[in-house]
């Protein structure tokens, strides 16, 4: 059902028969979006595009979990009249995407219910929009004059606790402002976006091969998740087929990443209630996984295994290590849950209710612990994972549910790894990589930013269940095979806003535990 695109610059050459792309006028957008959402679609991404003199373009991508159908709505926005009708009353994530698009491109969401800044801190120059083609690369930053709009909470005994952005542990920067009565949190406001690297802009002008190593670094612990999503988006755009063996290798890498991340998280959550010994053991187990990873791809965090058009690893993981780690983690979880104090600390703490989670579009284990059965491995599969795969859910939405869901998923991942290794039967991936026209025409460009004016001729989209939740990339490529735009969405973008909601009626000393149970990425959120 690919709709013809009369004049749009991004002529879709998408490989998937399930995607459709339609140009929509600004006036017709809200009704169209409402219809899609009512039909069970989820907003996966909304991204601005700067087509130079031709104006701006905002692309809204909707994914249908039941059928894997993807629908793109493209809205043309004139440069001198840059606004879009706000969807913030229809969809909470749409409202956040609109704020990000506004901060990046200066496209105003008209009638937005909360039109506050999102990614741009106040010291960024006024009127400077970093994602525009003509944006100066190195603007003059001013002092942060605005302060930050925290909703003041007043009343007897209410006080504020500011925390961060620099923390005492190895934690990424984020500022949290608590309004507290006694020890109970009345309201918490998180200020993130301290780690903006301009990643999406960095990707522009590069060939996919050049861009791939950057995407492995979007969020350090999601190297496979983001690299794979990016590679699949490029393959979708160019219609590159991927061999079954390579897809199995990719699924294997994805599960190996889930294994080591969940192991670390389970230990860290126990450590936050004072059970340091469980973390010590979790870190020991993670270390053996990381060393095994180093043998698999040559990198402890599994970088380097994914290529555009294929995948190649050095060795299959040692199943004895994976099995023994899974068994030991299961024992750690059992020890943890045998402790009545730990169970008391976890149970009923920082509850995220199903309705709130659904409304905010929360993803990953946080969503599954709140009873939302979302998992791109089932909803948007790129390989048949077989009977070893199942999604793990819980209903309670508290810290305990997020702990248990992680523990369950870890066991499923271990089983999947064993199954995938058996199916690969010694195969390490074909290593076949697509060499695009950009690469063929003379290899790397020394100045990837030189040519940002290319006209996109192909676009592609991918949804992958990274360990933290569904990652989504959408790429556009020009005739020379260079990226004109890469829009990246880490699941954290959807899940972060749910943390303050879950904190209602939580006490201050339980915040670190609640935060750890979410464990969202700061860098992946900010890009």
């Amino acid at each position: 059902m690919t709709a013809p695109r009369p004049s749009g610059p991004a002529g879709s050459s998408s490989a998937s028969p399930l995607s459709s792309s339609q140009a929509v006028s600004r006036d017709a957008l809200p009704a169209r979006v409402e219809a899609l959402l009512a039909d069970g679609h989820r907003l996966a991404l909304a991204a601005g595009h700067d087509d130079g003199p031709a104006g701006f373009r905002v692309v809204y991508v909707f994914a249908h979990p039941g059928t894997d159908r993807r629908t793109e709505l493209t809205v043309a926005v004139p440069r001198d009249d840059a606004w879009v009708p706000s969807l913030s009353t229809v969809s909470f994530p749409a409202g956040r995407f609109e704020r990000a698009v506004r901060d990046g491109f200066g496209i105003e969401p008209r009638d937005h219910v909360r039109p506050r800044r999102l990614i741009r801190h106040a010291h960024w120059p006024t009127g400077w929009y970093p994602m525009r083609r003509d944006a100066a690369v190195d603007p003059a930053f001013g002092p942060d004059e605005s302060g930050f709009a925290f909703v003041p909470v007043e009343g007897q005994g209410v006080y504020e606790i500011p925390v961060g952005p620099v923390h005492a542990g190895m934690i990424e920067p984020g500022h949290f402002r608590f309004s507290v009565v006694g020890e109970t949190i009345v309201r918490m406001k998180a200020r993130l976006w301290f780690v903006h690297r301009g990643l999406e802009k960095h990707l522009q002008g590069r060939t996919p091969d050049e861009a791939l190593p950057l995407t492995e670094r979007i969020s350090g612990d999601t190297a496979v998740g983001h690299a794979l999503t990016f590679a699949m988006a490029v393959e979708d755009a160019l219609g590159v087929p991927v061999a079954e063996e390579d897809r199995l290798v990719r699924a294997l890498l994805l599960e190996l990443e889930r294994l080591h991340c969940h192991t670390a998280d389970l230990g860290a959550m126990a450590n936050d209630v004072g059970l340091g010994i469980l973390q010590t053991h979790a870190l020991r187990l993670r270390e053996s996984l990381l060393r095994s990873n180093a043998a698999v791809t040559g990198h402890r965090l599994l970088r380097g295994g994914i290529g555009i058009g294929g995948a190649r690893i050095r060795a299959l993981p040692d199943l004895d290590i994976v099995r023994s780690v899974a068994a030991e983690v299961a024992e750690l979880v059992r020890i943890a849950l045998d402790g009545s104090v730990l169970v008391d600390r976890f149970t009923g703490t920082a509850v995220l209710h199903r309705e709130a989670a659904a409304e905010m579009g929360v993803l990953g284990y946080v969503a599954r612990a709140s009873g939302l059965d979302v998992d791109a491995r089932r909803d948007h599969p790129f390989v048949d994972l077989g009977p070893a795969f199942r999604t793990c859910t819980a209903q309670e939405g508290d810290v305990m549910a997020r702990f248990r869901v992680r523990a369950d998923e870890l066991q499923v991942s271990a089983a999947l790894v064993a199954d995938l290794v058996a199916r690969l039967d010694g195969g390490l991936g074909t290593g076949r990589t697509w060499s695009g026209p950009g690469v063929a025409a003379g290899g790397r460009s020394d100045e990837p930013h030189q040519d940002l004016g290319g006209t996109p001729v192909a676009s592609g989209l991918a949804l992958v269940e990274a360990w933290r939740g569904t990652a989504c990339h959408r790429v556009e490529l020009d005739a020379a095979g260079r990226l004109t735009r890469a829009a990246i969405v880490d699941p954290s973008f959807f899940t972060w806003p749910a943390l303050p909601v879950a904190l209602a009626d939580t006490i201050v000393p339980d915040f670190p535990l609640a935060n750890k149970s979410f464990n969202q990425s700061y860098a992946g959120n900010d890009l």
Partner: protein
Amino acid sequence: MSVAPLVVALVQVAVAVVFAPLVIGVTRQTRARLEGRVGPGVLQPARDLRKLLAKTPLRAAGTSPLTVVAPVVLLASSLLLAALVPLVAALPLALVPGDLFVVVSVLLVGTVAIALLGLDAGSAFGGMGSSRHMTIAALVEPTVLVAVYALSIPAGSSALPLIVAARRDHPASIATPAGVLAVVALAIVVLAETGRLPIDNPATHLELTMIHEAMVLETSARDLAWVDLASWLRLSVLLGLVGNLLLPWGVAGTAAVGPVLLGALALAGKLAVLAVLLATAEVGMAKLRLFRVPELLAGSFVLAFLAVTASYLVA
């Protein structure tokens, strides 16, 4: 009155100051070993102390002289505590009675000093820690009073040296229901008072969960050395008291050199055992939710109260 008890008290203070960093070192090292880490060795707290003492304190802008005074007051209270509590010898001081009310008051002076220190820099964390600390102190002090009172009934005196001496001379009184209940109650409040698991986690880096550590976040260098030493002294003295109540043997009864030396050796042994036991127990223990702490402390108060009741029933 001879000066002998005074000299012994000074010896006791000196012994406590030497032992306090070692007690902390032993707990940390034990914990490290049990968790499979190498650990920095039992001398590390002493090295830290030496390092801190060589540094010039950095004090937050806008702090009052309290920031300078409070660490010293805290240390003084801990040193006084070390003199009053029977550690090496059970000789009552004529100058200051080692009475339970005096001991509790001296503890309280230190508690208030550190709480004010937490408030003085005006940071949210310090205030939070002080507020939690005072909440716990309010629950701890009555238990200490009641528990020691229960122990004083069989001894016929509320002076700690006399209680310990009485238990040493009549070991049968140690294993009575009243004696056991009171010592258990005391042990729980000692954990609360000194910021150990499951009430407070001395090893955490999470500011929002801290109690004791939150109050000293703004303290540095020499000030921090005094605060640390004072807190370690508190732990050592209170552990020593619990040890001497449980096993009163070895505590010197006279001011002669021999018994005092023996007393110091016995104290070292008891502290080492208790420090290892404390660390071992902590490894397997999670930290209680803050709102559950009052329940635990109320439980210890009930134990102390039962101890009093039991002593009257027996007596």
